[in-house]
C-alpha cells in the first residue's frame, strides 16, 4: 500500500499535528533525479544534497559501484598512478550527504509524466532531472571497428577494464613493435587526452621497449597544446613518435581487428597494439529522451537546462554549451551552476550569475607537467571564453615540476568534491 499526501492528511484529521507534520513534509519534498555518477553527476548530487540540507530528495542513478576516473588514467598507463587509486565509490554520498544511490541503468525518460524508468524495472518520478551520462561512440566512425572489437582494439576512453587491457597490451608488445592510435575528430572528450596518452605510452615504452614505435593517425589538422606536446616528445622520446595527419590521408582510415592492420588511404600497416578512439556523441539516454540536436544536447548557458526541456539539465560531455572543452573540470564546474539553478527553482535559495572555469593539466614525462585553462561566462547564445592561459615551451624544470604537483592536488581536490 502506498500512502500519498492527500490520503495521509484526510486520515489523520484529529490526530496530533506534531506527529503528522514531518511525514507530510517528507512526502512533499521536491525530487531531483541525477543520471550518471561521473564528473558532472556525482558533483551535482553531492552539492544538491549538501546545500539543500534535506529540503530536496536527491536520487543518483549509476550502474557501476566503482567509478574509475578517465582523468589520470593516462598516468596509470605511464606507470605514474596505481590503478586502484583511480577508483571511487559512492558510500559517502549516501552516508554523509543523504543521496539515494540506485545502482541501475536509466533506460527511458517520460518527459510528460516526468519519470525515469530503470533497467531493473522501477520508475523514479522527478521535479527536475539532471543528465550527465558522458559519451558513447558514433557507429561506423572508424570503418572496420565497432564496440565488439574493443578487446582486440581497445578505446580505453571510458576508464576501467579497458584501461587495464590497453596497458597489458602495451607491455606485451614485441621488441621494436608498433603502437598505433586512431585519434578522434572534434569535438570529443578531453582535447589533450589522446596526446597526453601518447606521452605516457612513450614513457612506458622507453623503459621497457626502447626501439618500439608510436604511430598517431589523426584526422585533425591540429590539436590541443600541440606545440607543448611536440616539444615534449622531441625532448623525452626523440624519434619514437610519428603523426600522420589529414594531408597524408588520415581522414580516410579503416582497421581490421582480426588481422591487426590499419589502412591509411590505401596503405596497409601491421601493428601490435591499436588504440581506436572513435568519434563521439552524447550518452545514449539523451537520444532516448529526445533532447539531442545532432550528436549532442544544446543547453541554456545560464542554467545548463536542455533547450528542448526546461525540466532537464544536461551536464558535462553530453552537452553542447559553447566554448568549454569536454573535461571533468568543466563537468564539475557546470554541475555547480546547475545545482544553484535547481535549488533556486525548487526551494527559496538565492540565484547568482553563472560562472564557469576549466584547467586541464597534462604530463609529458617525469616531473614535466603543463596546463591550459580558461574562464567563461554565460551569454544568451553560448558559454563564452573570456580569458585563457597556457604553459609556454622552454619553461624551467622547477615550474614544470610544480605544475605536475599542482595536478596531483587538483585530482585530490576534484575527487573529494565529487565523492565527499
Amino acid at each position, binding site marked *: 500500500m502506498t500512502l500519498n499526501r492527500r490520503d495521509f492528511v484526510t486520515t489523520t484529521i484529529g490526530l496530533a499535528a506534531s506527529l503528522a507534520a514531518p511525514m507530510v513534509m517528507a512526502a512533499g519534498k521536491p525530487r531531483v533525479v541525477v543520471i550518471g555518477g561521473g564528473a558532472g553527476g556525482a558533483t551535482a548530487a553531492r*552539492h544538491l544534497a549538501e*546545500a539543500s540540507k534535506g529540503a530536496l530528495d536527491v536520487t543518483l542513478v549509476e550502474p557501476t559501484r566503482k567509478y574509475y576516473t578517465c582523468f589520470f588514467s593516462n598516468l596509470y598507463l605511464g606507470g605514474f598512478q596505481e590503478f586502484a587509486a583511480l577508483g571511487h565509490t559512492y558510500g559517502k554520498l549516501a552516508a554523509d550527504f543523504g543521496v539515494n544511490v540506485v545502482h541501475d541503468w536509466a533506460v527511458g525518460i517520460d518527459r510528460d509524466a516526468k519519470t525515469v524508468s530503470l533497467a531493473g524495472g522501477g520508475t523514479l518520478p522527478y521535479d527536475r532531472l539532471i543528465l550527465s551520462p558522458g559519451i558513447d561512440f558514433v557507429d561506423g566512425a572508424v570503418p572496420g571497428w565497432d564496440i565488439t572489437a574493443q578487446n582486440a582494439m581497445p578505446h580505453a576512453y571510458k576508464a576501467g577494464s579497458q584501461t587495464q587491457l590497453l596497458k597489458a597490451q602495451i607491455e606485451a608488445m614485441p621488441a621494436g613493435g608498433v603502437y598505433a592510435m586512431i585519434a578522434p575528430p572534434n569535438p570529443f572528450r578531453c582535447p589533450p587526452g589522446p596526446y597526453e596518452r601518447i606521452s605516457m605510452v612513450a614513457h612506458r615504452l622507453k623503459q621497457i621497449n626502447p626501439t618500439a614505435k608510436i604511430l598517431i593517425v589523426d584526422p585533425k589538422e591540429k590539436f590541443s597544446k600541440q606545440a607543448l606536446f611536440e616539444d615534449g616528445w622531441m625532448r623525452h622520446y626523440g624519434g619514437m613518435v610519428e603523426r600522420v595527419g589529414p594531408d597524408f590521408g588520415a581522414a580516410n582510415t579503416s582497421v581490421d581487428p582480426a588481422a591487426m592492420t590499419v589502412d591509411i588511404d590505401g596503405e596497409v600497416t601491421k601493428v601490435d597494439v591499436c588504440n581506436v578512439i572513435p568519434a563521439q556523441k552524447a550518452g545514449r539516454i539523451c537520444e532516448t529522451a529526445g533532447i539531442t540536436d545532432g550528436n549532442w544536447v544544446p543547453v541554456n548557458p545560464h542554467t545548463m537546462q536542455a533547450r528542448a526541456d526546461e525540466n532537464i539539465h544536461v551536464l558535462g560531455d553530453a552537452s553542447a554549451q559553447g566554448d568549454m572543452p569536454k573535461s571533468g*573540470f568543466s563537468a*564539475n*564546474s557546470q554541475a*555547480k551552476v546547475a*545545482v*544553484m539553478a535547481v535549488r533556486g527553482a525548487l526551494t527559496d535559495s*538565492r540565484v*547568482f550569475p553563472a*560562472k564557469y*572555469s576549466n*584547467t586541464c593539466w597534462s604530463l609529458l614525462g617525469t616531473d614535466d607537467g603543463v*596546463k591550459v*585553462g*580558461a*574562464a567563461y561566462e554565460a551569454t544568451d547564445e553560448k558559454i563564452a571564453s*573570456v*580569458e*585563457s*592561459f597556457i604553459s609556454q615551451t622552454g619553461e624551467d624544470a*622547477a*615550474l614544470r*615540476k*610544480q605544475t605536475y*604537483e*599542482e*595536478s*596531483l*592536488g*587538483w585530482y*585530490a*581536490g*576534484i575527487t*573529494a*568534491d565529487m565523492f565527499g
Partner: protein
Amino acid sequence: MLKRRKRSILAGSALLAWAAFAPAVMAERIGDAERGAEIYRKCAACHMVGAQAKNRIGPHLNGIFGRKAAALDGFRYSDAMRRAGADGLIWELDKLDAYLENPKALVTGTRMSFAGIRSLDDRHDVLAYLRTFSDKPRDIPEASPTAVAHEVALAPEVLAMAGDRDYGEYLSSECLTCHRKDGSDRGIPAITGWRNEDFVVAMHAYRQKLRPHPVMQMMAGRLSDEEIAALAAYFAALE
C-alpha cells in the same frame, strides 16, 4: 638628505619645467641610497649585504634585483617562497616594493616575520640602497615604483568590507575543485581559516598580477571587491 630636498624642490617647480624634467629624473633614481642605509638597519637584524655577506636568519641580499625568489642554494626558504620562485617571481622593483610594503600580500606563507614598511619614500630609499649592491647597478632597468601604481595597501573600506556569506559559498564552489575544504595542502595550498585581511590582500595581489600564477591571476581577475570579501568571509569560517 640634500638630494632628497632637491627632489622635492623639483617637484614644486613650475609646471612646464616639471613636465620636461620628470621622466629623466624618475628614471635616474629610485630613492635616496644614503637615507636607505639607515632604514636598512631594520633589515640588518636578519639580512647581510655587501662583501662577505652570508645567509643569516634571512638570505643575503647581494644582487637581489633581478634575482629569482628563493634562488640561493644554501638557504632554507619557506615552502611558500620556494613556490613563488618556481612560479616565476623575479625580484624586480615593483615586486620588491610590494614585498617590503606587506610581505604577506605577495607571499602569504613567507617566513619573513616583518610587518612591512608603510612609507613609500622609506621603501624607495632602502631599495635604492640595496641597488648599490647589485653586480651592475647601471643595468638594472629603473622605473619609479609609483609609476607601476600597485596598491598593495588596500583602502580601509576594501579591507573592512563585510562579505556576503551565501554569495561566498556559491563563489567558493569554483575554488573547491582545486583547494580542499578540509584544509589539506598537497600540491595546492590550503586557504581555509585564514585571517580575513591576509586573504583579501592575497587575492588583490593576484588580481593586479603582482603575484605570479596564471590560474590564480585568472580566477582573481574576474572577481570584484565585493566578491573577494564574500569569499574571504566564507573561507575564514571554514575549519
